[in-house]
């Protein structure tokens, strides 16, 4: 067991007129090496959940355990938690403040009191992980980059502290297709090659279906489903539709074909899978 949220509740503005319950009885266990997707409508509590995992918010009720230790029992532990878990908020480039990309990425390691020559290696590594050349970029201003590059530098600034878990909140928002695909390849790489645990929040079902291995569906501050994407996209389609979440178009296509009596497998996650399935059917006929 690695990260364990034990019956967690979170209420904003507790005991105030605008009190709102954002999360209710959340139980999640996250193991090392998982690739988790979280979906749900805006305001369902996703972002609150991410902040709880990173120790930025303290649960109103319940516990957050990392390797069995309650992170809020001892406040000095929180820094350790944030070193092990990297969280990239939506539009992370909005937090840039340094003159050079080097300094921007070095901000995290510096806060952790790491020595300068070690920081240099960390910055180098972080840039390499997002596919950017150290010498080409280190002295440039982060504000001079294109949208896609900015996003990658922002993510590198999270990776610099070498976290075991990487949490990404809507990492592809507002990027064009090319930058998006590049970023997704990087995320895949972080998972496969660098063996990081990844938690990805996205409204984009295509991305979720293609990348994640486990899917958590949230609705009104609760966890509604927690299973593999294939199972959810196969068995719980009506449930997803009932809360107004859409399916990836190919998943939906195969589901509809099955619904009208065609002998296809539903629970298709990618274009590739859909193609294989259709070709198989055509051959059979």
């Amino acid at each position, binding site marked *: 067991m690695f990260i364990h949220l034990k019956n967690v509740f979170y209420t904003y503005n507790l005991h105030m007129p605008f009190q709102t319950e954002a999360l209710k009885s959340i139980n999640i266990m996250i193991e090392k090496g998982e690739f988790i997707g979280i979906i749900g*409508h*805006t*305001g369902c509590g996703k972002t609150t959940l991410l902040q709880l995992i990173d120790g930025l918010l303290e649960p109103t009720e319940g516990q957050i355990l990392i390797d069995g230790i309650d992170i809020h029992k001892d406040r000095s532990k929180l820094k350790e938690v944030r070193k092990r878990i990297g969280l990239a908020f939506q539009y992370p480039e909005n937090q840039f403040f340094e003159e050079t990309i080097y300094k921007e990425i070095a901000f995290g390691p510096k806060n952790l009191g790491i020595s300068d020559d070690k920081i240099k290696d960390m910055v180098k590594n972080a840039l390499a992980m997002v596919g950017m050349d150290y010498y080409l970029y280190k002295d440039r201003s982060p504000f001079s980059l*294109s*949208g*896609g590059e900015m996003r990658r530098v922002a993510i590198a600034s999270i990776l610099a502290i070498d976290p075991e878990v990487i949490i990404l909140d809507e990492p592809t*928002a*507002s*990027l*064009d*297709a*090319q*930058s*998006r695909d590049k970023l997704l390849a990087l995320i895949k790489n972080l998972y496969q090659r660098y063996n990081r645990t990844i938690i990805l929040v996205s*409204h984009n079902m*295509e991305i979720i279906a293609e990348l994640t291995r486990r899917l958590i569906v949230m609705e009104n501050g609760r966890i509604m489903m927690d299973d593999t994407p294939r199972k959810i996209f196969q068995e719980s389609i009506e449930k997803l539709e009932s809360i*107004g979440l*859409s399916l*990836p*178009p*190919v998943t*939906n*296509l195969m589901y*509809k*074909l099955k619904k*009208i009596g*065609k*002998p*296809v497998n539903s629970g298709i996650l990618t*274009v*590739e899978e*859909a*193609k294989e399935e*259709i*070709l198989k*059917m*055509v051959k059979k*006929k």
Partner: protein
Amino acid sequence: MGLPNPAIKKGINTLIKFSNVTHFYNDGQENKITSLSEINFEIQKGDFIAIIGANGSGKSTLAKHINGLLLPSQGDVFVENYNTKDPENIWEIRKKIGMVFQNPDNQLVATTVEDDIAFGLENIGMEEEEMKERVDWALNIVDLNELRNSEPHLLSGGQKQKVVIAGALAMHTSYLVLDEPTSMLDPKGRKEVLEITKRLNQEEKITIIYITQFMSEAAEFNKIILLDKGKIILSDYPKAIFKKVDLLIKLSLEIPQITKLARQLSENGLNIPTNILKEEEMMEYLCLYI
């Protein structure tokens, strides 16, 4: 008022015309950067047009030329018979053209929904009674009557964009230019904005120019203008545009999953057109095979 331009006199229905529009700006180092080059197109009354292009293709620059927020370095933009270059015309043009920008947070000025919708009307010096009528009317069209007293920061992104749209409607705008209105919204907000845009075109006969980088959205329009590096490289019906999937991929545009699937199936010998855009259509073809 400026004199009507003889060049566009003949086409009565041509309402917006870009004629050889080139735009460049200095990037601070005296380097001229061309953001639009020799743009020519016309928009007719009632058109429902999408302009697509990747980030940096010049889409937003083009949008800002339509109502004179930017002026062409070379060439002219005409709105009805007014040239945007003539400062006398500019307010007349802006009354006719409503604009919706990308970031829903940075467009609302007033502290309640209804006051914001009235903002434009106040600016053109409208009388109070007419203003009230128009605000009520616009609120109804975008279906936000219940939120009329709400503070903007408590609304969802989609609702904020609808308030911006209502603000334009209240001006009795004939054209609505939407510059990536959905790129910062969630799927629900996206759907709402696209639906209202369609309805305004059909029911209120408002000419729509919709700028986006989502091919799936562009597919809903009657005509698509494809922009790359400041140039128009294609201008056609969606079906014709979607035939050129390779080009679209090269231009860093997102291809709908269904179109990708159609292409892969056709490469594997199935007789399926490669420009299928929607699931229903794909279903029909697949039912022929399985």
